[in-house]
Structure formats: structure tokens, C-alpha cells
């Protein structure tokens, strides 16, 4: 029968939704990833949105994209290039086609490829497909008109009807991947619970898109099915890195039995953490949007002294401004978590783009000897664990801790198995023992060299801390040379003594010819590159670091074990330089890229192959 379509089984597929920033591409993308995750596929997503609030409609700078990678098994990245590109207007096709594979299927809304659209997108002819030399399958559908026809009797105005275009595209993609629309229906009914008419209109349009694909076969040769191989049963949700970070702080505060305080100042791409924590008043979370970055951190130091789990969040130039108050927490030996969602720099740099260029700043960018633990989250879901662990270290070791994430993991999302707080380790701050009343001094330390925490309001433990050096024995201001040297050593040793897990070696751990080394948010791309190299028969391993200061105890041993080591990072070699400072005689190969974009797995594979062939 002519009705029969060939269904192709795939292990993984990448879909990129793109359109004008007002076209609802983030929602369509999110919804598609949720639908896919619900049937058990693994997902990894990445939004790519413009820095401008609202560039002129239809312009090249106003294009917003959302990439979803779904897989039958584990997926590590949102994917280099896409198998399906949705381009809602001419500008989207022009700017996003470069992300499409040569075999990709392209979906366009022909109604937004009219003369004026083409002009805005700087096309010279009236045939953009030919002009760009596109040889791919193209589903060219008059989406806007069909949406209007579909909603003709809804009583909605033109503008409201066109807001549903994204759902038509989503319906078409759902048809292409044999996706059940029930999940989308439930989601939309919930999202628009207060506007049921809008929900129903969207649902109607999503079905229209699906049916359009089904009825016309849309000039493609086949549809796809991605079976799920996930074997870890349980309850899941889709979570972005920023939301997971916020949840990590909430979980840590609850576990420690402390109030959570966030002092912050709006800055892209860290602001979502402030947004998220501001919502959860019913958990007692206190958020203060301060007058500046300095006050964000300074007020958190005040909150910490007062006995809260204190957090400050920032990005880009904000971390420079916070360094002064971070140092105050170092000398006062107070717990504090400083979240730095790294973005492109220097200065204002590339506010919405991702880099790993703050590493040396957070390790060393403060006056004086100022040791501070540093952790770097490795994926959107790891942000939860990393935020929890950063809080635990801060509270148990009475120190500020830097948690590094980046725009890529912060905005990216993945399926996350809901954690059980009971399975997370206890958090036990070194509260001053009551029996020390009368003899206690502020810098008296426990066996791990950690100062005790006396919370204001407790009788018998009044004390003054401060930014001036103190006498270790009495806590009074001291300029004594021997005491300053001692205090410097004590602060250093306290950080060195923090126990962190060994760095794990994945892949050919016994006989790799090349060890790939990375840290933080590049884990997915480096892992995917290793997988590809191994699939091609190469002997490769990966050591990916989450704990930067202190480094895992087995670092030197791992680095020495393999004939070749390459440190791959999105900066000019900061982690490689740090390792060289810590490990005598260590000279790795380096792979450095500072483009503000995630690594491209294919590029990593060719660079690593070149090193293997040397």
C-alpha cells in the first residue's frame, strides 16, 4: 500500500528548532525533549539564544535556537550537528543551516519566506534553498496559513493564532519520530491551566501539524523510531543546570538544618538561580537582590556569620567584584558558597556564551595568600551534586568554596532521576561545643584544623571577627610576624586536608595511549570524543576533574600512567597550567578553544587523532 512509510530505527537523533526569538522555539524544544524523555530516551538539550532582548523581527541577529539530542542509550552532549532542522523563517535558515548534517531533513514555514523576509535575511534571490546550495530533504509547508485555517473558528485574533506556529512545527516533528501526542496535551493543559482556550488551541495545532505530516508524508522517505534502552528505573524530570544548582543548595540547607540565604545581583547566565530560589519561600529560602555584586557577596558573608548556609551567585565580571568579600570569608573562616556560572570574557565579553576562562581567577584572583576550594560541575544534572558538595565542604570546613559551572551546563538540560535526600551524606558543621564556654577563643580549631562556629545569639560565645589578621590563640588583632606566618599556614593546611574523591579514569584505563583530561562542563563532549575514538579502535581514556582545589589524591599517579596526555579546555590552558604547577615535570598536550560555543566532538576526535599519530 502506498500509505506505508518506512520506519527507520535510530540510536540517536539531534533536532534543532530555530526561529525568531519570539517564535517559541525554546518551548517547542523543551516539549519535544520532555515527550522523548517520557518514553525513556536519554536527552541532552542546549538553548542558543541571542544576547539582545528583542532584535528586529525576522532579522539575522534575532534568531533563537534550541537543540535536543535524544538517544536510545546514554547521550553525553546536545550533539554537534542536527538530523532535523526546523527553520521558522528565512533568517533562521540562513543562520542555522550550518548546524545541519548533509543528510538532515529541513522543515520550513514557507509563509515566512516571502520577499520581505528574504530581504531581512539578506538573501539575494527569491529561492533561498537554491541560493544556499541546499540539497537536503526539505519539508516546505505553509505553516502560518495552516495554523490560521486550523484556528479560523476559534475567535482568536491573527496575532494570537500565529503564536501557535511553534506547535505546528512540533506536531510535524512528533510525526517524524512517531511520538505520542498525549504527553504534549497534558503538558499544555497544565502550562495553560488558567487559559484553557489557549491550551486547546495549541493542542489543536499540534495535531494539525502531526496530521499534515501523516497525510502528505511531507516529501520525506521515512520516519524514525528511537527505542529506549534506559535501564535505571525510577521517577525522572527534565532539569537545567541552573535549576539543579538551586536545588542542590536547597537540599544541602535542609540536610544541614540551616536557613538558605542567597545574596545576588542579576547577571546572565546566572540569574536563573536567583529566579529559582526566589520562588521557594515555602521552604524558608531567603533571597536578597542586592544593589551590586559586591553587596551580594558581602551580605552573604553577613548571613553566614549570623548562622545561615550563605550563597552568592554570579557570572563574568561579577566574580571580579566579589573577590574582596570572598577574601573576607577566607580570613574570618566563615562558610560561603560562591557560584560562578562562567561566560565569555574578558569584561562584559559574550554574556550568553560559554567558556571555562575563570578558573585561575577563582583559584588565585585575590590579594594575599587566599586558599579556597574550587569545584566544577560536569553536567546539568551534576550541578545538583556539585552544589550539595560545595555547601557541605563550606559548612564542614568553615571556608568559602567556589562552585564553577558555565553557560553550557547552566542552560542545558538533561533527564534527572529524582534524588532521595536520605541517601546524601550528612552535613555536620563544627558548631562550638557548649563545654568550651568560658575558655573558647574565635580561632580555636578542631582536629581537622577547622575553626569552631559560634552563632550569634548564643550566650557565652560573643566574639569579634574581622578582616585584620588575628592572633591564633586569642583572636585579637595581631601584626606579629610569626603569628601571621602561622595563620597563613593554618588556612592553607585546612584546605589541603579536605578529602575529595579520586579522579576516575574511564575508557581504556589500563592501556590507553592517550589520556584525555578535562574539567567541569566539557565532560559530555570529551566523553563522546573518547567513545568515538575507541569505536575506531584507538586506545583512549578520560580523566575528568570535578574537584579542582584540592586536587584528588591520585592526580599525579593518573597523569604519569599514560604515554600521552592532552588537557582539553575552553580557555588558553588554565587547567593545564595549574596541573603543571602542581605536578613536577608534567608537560601535557593542550587543546584550547575559546569560541563561546561548546566543543564540537568531530573536531576533538580529529585533534586527538593527530596527537595519537605523533
Amino acid at each position, binding site marked *: 500500500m502506498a500509505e506505508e512509510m518506512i520506519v527507520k530505527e535510530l540510536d540517536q537523533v539531534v533536532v534543532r528548532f530555530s526561529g525568531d526569538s519570539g517564535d517559541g522555539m525554546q518551548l517547542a524544544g523543551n516539549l519535544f525533549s520532555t515527550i522523548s524523555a517520557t518514553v525513556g530516551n536519554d536527552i541532552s538539550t542546549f538553548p542558543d539564544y541571542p544576547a539582545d532582548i528583542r532584535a528586529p523581527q525576522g532579522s539575522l541577529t534575532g534568531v533563537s535556537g534550541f537543540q535536543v539530542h535524544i538517544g536510545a542509550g546514554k547521550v553525553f552532549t546536545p550533539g554537534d550537528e542536527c538530523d532535523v532542522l526546523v527553520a521558522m523563517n528565512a533568517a533562521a535558515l540562513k543562520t542555522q543551516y550550518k548546524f545541519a548534517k548533509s543528510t538532515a531533513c529541513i522543515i520550513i514555514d514557507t509563509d515566512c519566506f516571502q520577499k520581505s523576509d528574504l530581504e531581512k535575511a539578506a538573501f539575494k534571490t527569491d529561492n533561498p534553498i537554491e541560493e544556499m546550495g541546499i540539497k537536503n530533504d526539505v519539508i516546505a509547508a505553509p505553516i502560518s496559513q495552516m495554523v490560521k485555517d486550523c484556528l479560523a473558528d476559534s475567535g482568536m485574533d491573527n496575532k494570537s493564532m500565529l503564536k501557535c506556529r511553534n506547535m505546528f512545527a512540533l506536531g510535524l516533528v512528533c510525526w517524524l519520530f512517531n511520538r505520542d501526542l498525549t504527553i504534549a496535551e497534558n503538558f499544555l493543559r497544565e502550562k495553560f491551566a488558567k487559559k484553557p482556550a489557549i491550551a486547546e488551541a495549541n493542542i489543536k495545532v499540534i495535531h494539525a501539524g502531526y496530521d499534515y505530516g501523516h497525510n502528505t508524508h511531507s516529501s520525506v522517505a521515512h520516519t524514525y523510531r528511537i527505542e529506549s534502552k534506559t535501564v535505571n*528505573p525510577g*521517577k525522572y524530570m527534565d532539569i537545567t543546570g541552573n535549576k539543579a544548582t538551586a536545588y542542590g543548595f536547597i537540599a544541602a540547607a535542609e540536610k544541614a538544618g540551616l536557613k538558605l*540565604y542567597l545574596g545576588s545581583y542579576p547577571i546572565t547566565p546566572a540569574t536563573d538561580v536567583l529566579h529559582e530560589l526566589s520562588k521557594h*519561600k*515555602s521552604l524558608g529560602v531567603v533571597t536578597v537582590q542586592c544593589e551590586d555584586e559586591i*553587596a551580594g557577596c558581602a551580605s552573604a558573608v553577613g548571613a553566614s556569620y549570623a548562622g545561615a548556609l550563605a550563597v552568592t551567585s554570579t557570572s563574568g565580571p561579577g566574580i571580579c567584584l566579589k573577590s574582596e568579600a570572598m577574601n573576607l570569608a577566607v580570613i574570618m573562616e566563615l562558610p560561603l558558597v560562591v557560584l560562578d556560572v562562567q561566560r565569555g570574557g574578558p569584561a562584559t565579553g559574550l554574556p550568553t556564551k560559554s567558556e571555562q576562562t575563570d578558573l585561575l581567577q577563582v583559584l588565585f584572583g585575590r590579594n594575599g595568600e587566599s586558599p579556597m576550594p574550587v569545584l566544577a560541575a560536569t553536567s546539568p544534572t551534576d550541578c545538583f551534586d556539585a552544589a550539595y558538595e560545595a555547601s557541605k565542604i563550606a559548612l564542614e570546613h568553615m571556608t568559602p568554596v567556589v562552585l564553577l559551572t558555565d553557560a553550557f551546563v547552566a542552560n542545558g538540560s538533561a533527564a534527572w532521576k529524582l534524588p532521595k535526600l536520605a541517601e546524601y551524606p550528612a552535613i555536620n558543621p563544627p558548631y562550638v561545643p557548649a563545654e568550651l564556654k568560658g575558655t573558647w577563643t574565635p580561632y580555636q580549631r578542631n582536629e581537622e584544623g577547622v575553626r569552631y562556629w559560634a552563632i550569634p545569639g548564643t550566650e557565652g560565645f560573643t566574639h569579634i571577627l574581622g578582616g585584620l589578621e588575628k592572633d591564633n590563640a586569642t583572636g585579637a588583632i595581631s601584626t606579629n610576624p610569626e603569628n601571621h606566618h602561622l595563620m597563613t599556614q593554618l588556612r592553607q593546611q585546612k584546605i589541603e586536608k579536605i578529602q575529595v574523591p579520586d579522579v576516575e579514569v574511564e575508557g581504556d584505563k589500563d592501556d590507553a595511549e592517550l589520556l584525555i583530561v578535562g574539567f567541569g562542563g566539557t565532560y559530555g563532549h570529551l566523553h563522546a570524543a573518547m567513545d568515538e575514538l575507541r569505536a575506531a579502535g584507538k586506545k583512549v581514556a578520560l580523566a575528568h576533574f570535578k574537584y579542582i582545589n584540592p586536587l584528588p589524591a591520585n592526580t599525579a599517579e593518573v597523569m604519569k600512567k599514560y604515554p600521552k596526555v592532552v588537557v582539553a579546555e575552553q580557555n588558553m590552558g588554565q587547567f593545564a597550567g595549574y596541573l603543571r604547577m602542581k605536578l613536577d615535570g608534567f608537560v601535557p598536550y593542550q587543546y584550547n578553544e575559546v569560541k563561546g560555543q561548546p566543543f564540537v566532538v568531530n573536531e576533538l576526535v580529529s585533534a586527538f587523532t593527530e596527537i595519537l599519530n605523533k
Partner: protein
Amino acid sequence: MCEFTAKDYKKGQPRWCPGCGDHFFLASLHKAMAEIGVAPWDIAVISGIGCSSRLPHYMNTYGMNTIHGRSAAIATGCKVANPNLTVWQVSGDGDGLAIGGNHFIHANRRNVNLNMILLNNRIYGLTKGQYSPTSPRGFVSKSSPYGTVEDPFCPAELCFGARGHFFARAVATDAAGTVDILKAAYKHQGSSVCEILQNCVIFNHGTHESVYTKEGRAKNAIYLEHGKPMLFGENKEFGLVQEGFGLKVVKLGENGITEKDILVHDAHCEDNTLQMKLALMQGPEFPVALGVIRDVEAPTYDDGVYAQIEEVSAKKNYHNFEELLLTNDTWEVK
């Protein structure tokens, strides 16, 4: 009910120069705290950096001597995180109004329940004598050997400009006047700014000279008290009246002026126009205004934060982390 004496708030031996206004203020603060009666362990005294910011080291309370300019921000975090504490924030004119100017105005705008002390000697003392943001135009100092070419701040103007609700002024050598405004500042719910006029014997000797002695104040200052007529002078022979949009000094008995014609101080008036005029008065034409100049009730930030937590908690159906997780769209993998 515990009773405390000034001694209970005292610690250590101050290291300020002999004759420094900080000594006088510290003694008044100890005294005011004893009269207020909040236990030392329920108090946090938070300062920045500068001569006057050494003050917490001489307090037997909780406290921090932090970093330059940031104490209003640090105190804000401390108070909001632990609203049961009584928080006194202490800074000088350089610390509070130059490097810390932004935090000063925003603490006032937010109306955080802080008692904010501004020890104003119109000089940077700890760095050994540079002009400060309250030094008058033309002021000669080590960093302005030919005189400054900039105008100073008037702290009250900044406080009012930031929509502050409490401003009071005292002279450091006037213990009774200082204790009075400190008690009023404690009583006021919200940010309360107390400007303390004080001398720097080494680098700015004689600043505030006209009001630094009892005799000087009798002639050159007016003590404002809510509900009382604005009379001053050694025998209360002078008074203030309104003239156009400004103020005028008059003598009782002259030109038929009686006490009835004299303005009555209204510290509780929401409109700060007249309070501003009073705060800006300068000699020799006008007396310097001392006492509580503005004291207006308004919702405080910290109360607002906790009221909102309570209100939202009552409405939301999740109150711990695992309940929070379930507010998301989830799916089951079997």
C-alpha cells in the same frame, strides 16, 4: 528579665588617639546599650574599615570589623538571615559615604532594621589625613594641598534622598545627647541613621568646633524634640520660623514674636521637606540641628521578607525538598 550595666558591653582597651571623638562615642554606646537592655549575645556590631571601625573590638557583643565600605551590606545579610539579632552598623564618613556610599543609600531605601552609626570627622584618619566626602570645598589636606575643588555630601541629604525614615545627629562629646539618639534609633523599626559629629585631634582638629563644647552648643546648636517648639540659645531666646520655602532665626520678644510663632518640631511627618531644611542648617546664620530630626514609621525590609515567607508557605503545598521535586513534570521509567 536581665539587667545590664555599661560594663557588660565593654571589652579591651581602645587604641584611638587621646582626645579622639571615638572614645566619647564608645562610652555613650555602652551606656545606651545598657539602658536599652538587649543582652550582649543578642547584639551584632558590624563595622567597615577606618579609625572608627575599630569599635567592635571594644564591644563584648558579637560583631565584625569587616572590609572598607561594605559594612551596611554585610549588616543587611546578618539582620535578614537572623532577624532576632539587634544589629548596629558602624562606619566613618569615608567608609560609609565614599567607598560604601552605594550600600549606605540602599540600606536606607530598603529600610532594613539596622542602627546605622556614621562617625563624621570629615577626614580620612587611618590613612593619615586625606580629605573625605564630607570635607568642605577648599579643604586642605595631604591629598589636596591646594584645597579641594569638590563639594561635600551632607549625610542627612543622602539619607533623605534614599527615602530614609530615621535621621538623628549628636556631638560625640555630648554623652546625654548621643545616648538619647541611640536609644531612639534602637526604638525605630527600620534603618536609623545617627550622624555623630566628632573631632580628629591629629588630622582635622577643630572641625565641628562651634558645637563641640557645652557652651558652644548652647549658642550654636538647637536640640530638636518631637512636639516641642524649635527654641535655642543660652536662654532659649531664639527660635525658628518659616519664611517662604526656608527657615529664619528670630528672637523672642522682638517684632512681637512670641513662642506661639515658633515652629514645632514634627519628626514623624512623612514629608521630609522641613526636616531636610533643619538638617541642612549651618552656622553662623543658623544653629546646627541636633537630636532626632526624622523618625517616621514604615514597613521594614526584614519584616517584609518573613511576612512573605509566612504568606507563601500558607498557600503552597510543598514545604521540604522532596515535596519540591514533585512540583515538577515527572515521568516514570520502569
